[in-house]
């Protein structure tokens, strides 16, 4: 049965529910965005009133969700033909493209204006840049035109920690740029690992992902190259004073595992095993990013606890 007809039975004619609009926002992507933004906020020097911090996080989250909805609006035509995306609300027929466009636009404008007015305009401006970059540069321009779509378009996913940092400090710094670069360099091997085992989907809809255009072997080579480049970038927070010893150890060990998996993907090229290894790298890459940012957050919390004397009180 064709992918697009598998989901027609799910249309019940009763219109979209609240859950369908939440699904438009790509909640799993939102959770990574909000987490990296939170770490950017916590790692930044100085402080921010908790109410304003909460508002900033909420605006960043909603802005990310709005980007997801606008992406689903624009890509509705290809989403219905890909197994990975055919169950999304628009291909399923529960939300119309126009509803998704209106939903995404209202949320984008509201989140940017709210962040700018209530927190600061550097953060608001960066959020606007993020949304604009993701929609106009990645979704509408690069995604269907070049195999470098992920490399450049990945910048959109790298902005959240910078926005979080800017919410606290009112500016951009070397440290926030490093956080940006970690996600930027992580994006290509992460998405190309996915594209390797979803190659047929992208080929079907004519999206020029690297495995479709240059072939799986070249994609594997590029995954290794970007993984090699990612490792020093991932470790660099230690050398600029952003991360401590725990971060150095974690980023080094996980970086080595990342590289080992990348080489495994490079060597395993045939059959189901190749797909399995690619999926393994994809799943691990999510853990890698989460763990690096979690350790940064943990170290910051530990610093605060020490400063508060809580450790003394607990261990006295």
């Amino acid at each position, binding site marked *: 049965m064709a992918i697009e007809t598998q989901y027609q039975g799910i249309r*019940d*004619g*009763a*219109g979209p*529910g609240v859950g369908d609009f939440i699904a438009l926002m790509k909640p799993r992507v939102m959770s990574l965005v909000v987490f990296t933004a939170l770490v950017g906020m916590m790692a930044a020097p100085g402080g921010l009133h908790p*109410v*304003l911090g909460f508002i900033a996080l909420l605006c960043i989250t909603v802005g990310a969700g709005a980007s997801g909805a606008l992406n689903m609006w624009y890509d509705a035509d290809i989403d219905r033909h890909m197994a990975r995306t055919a169950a999304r609300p628009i291909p399923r027929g529960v939300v119309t493209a126009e509803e998704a466009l209106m939903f995404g636009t209202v949320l984008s404008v509201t989140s940017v204006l*709210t962040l700018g007015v*209530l927190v600061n305009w550097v953060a608001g401006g960066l959020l606007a840049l993020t949304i604009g970059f993701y929609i106009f540069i990645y979704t509408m321009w690069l995604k269907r035109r070049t195999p470098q779509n992920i490399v450049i378009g990945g910048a959109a996913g790298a902005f959240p920690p910078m926005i979080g940092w800017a919410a606290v400090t009112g500016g951009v710094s070397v440290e926030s740029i490093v956080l940006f670069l970690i996600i930027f360099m992580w994006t290509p091997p992460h998405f190309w690992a996915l594209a390797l085992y979803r190659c047929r989907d992208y080929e079907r809809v004519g999206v020029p992902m690297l495995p479709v255009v240059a072939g799986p072997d070249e994609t594997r080579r590029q995954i290794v190259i970007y993984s090699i480049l990612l490792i020093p970038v991932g470790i660099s927070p230690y050398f600029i004073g952003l991360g401590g010893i725990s971060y150095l150890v974690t980023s080094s060990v996980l970086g080595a595992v990342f590289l080992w998996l990348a080489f495994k993907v490079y060597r395993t090229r045939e059959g189901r095993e190749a797909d399995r290894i690619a999926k393994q790298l994809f799943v691990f890459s999510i853990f890698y990013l989460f763990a690096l940012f979690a350790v940064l957050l943990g170290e910051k919390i530990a610093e605060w606890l020490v400063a508060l004397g809580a450790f003394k009180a607990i261990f006295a």
Partner: protein
Amino acid sequence: MANNAGHEQQKKVEAERAKRQRLRSIAIAVGLGVLVVLFYAATIVHLGGNALNRPM
């Protein structure tokens, strides 16, 4: 009999449609309410504690 079954199905769909529309309206109202609260809270924060301490 087939007509009755179709009619029943139509009624169910209409009831479900009304329920989902109501829930969407509630969600929008909650969202707007949250926005109002956020603006109020942020204004208090920006004004600082002494906002309440002023000569009348």
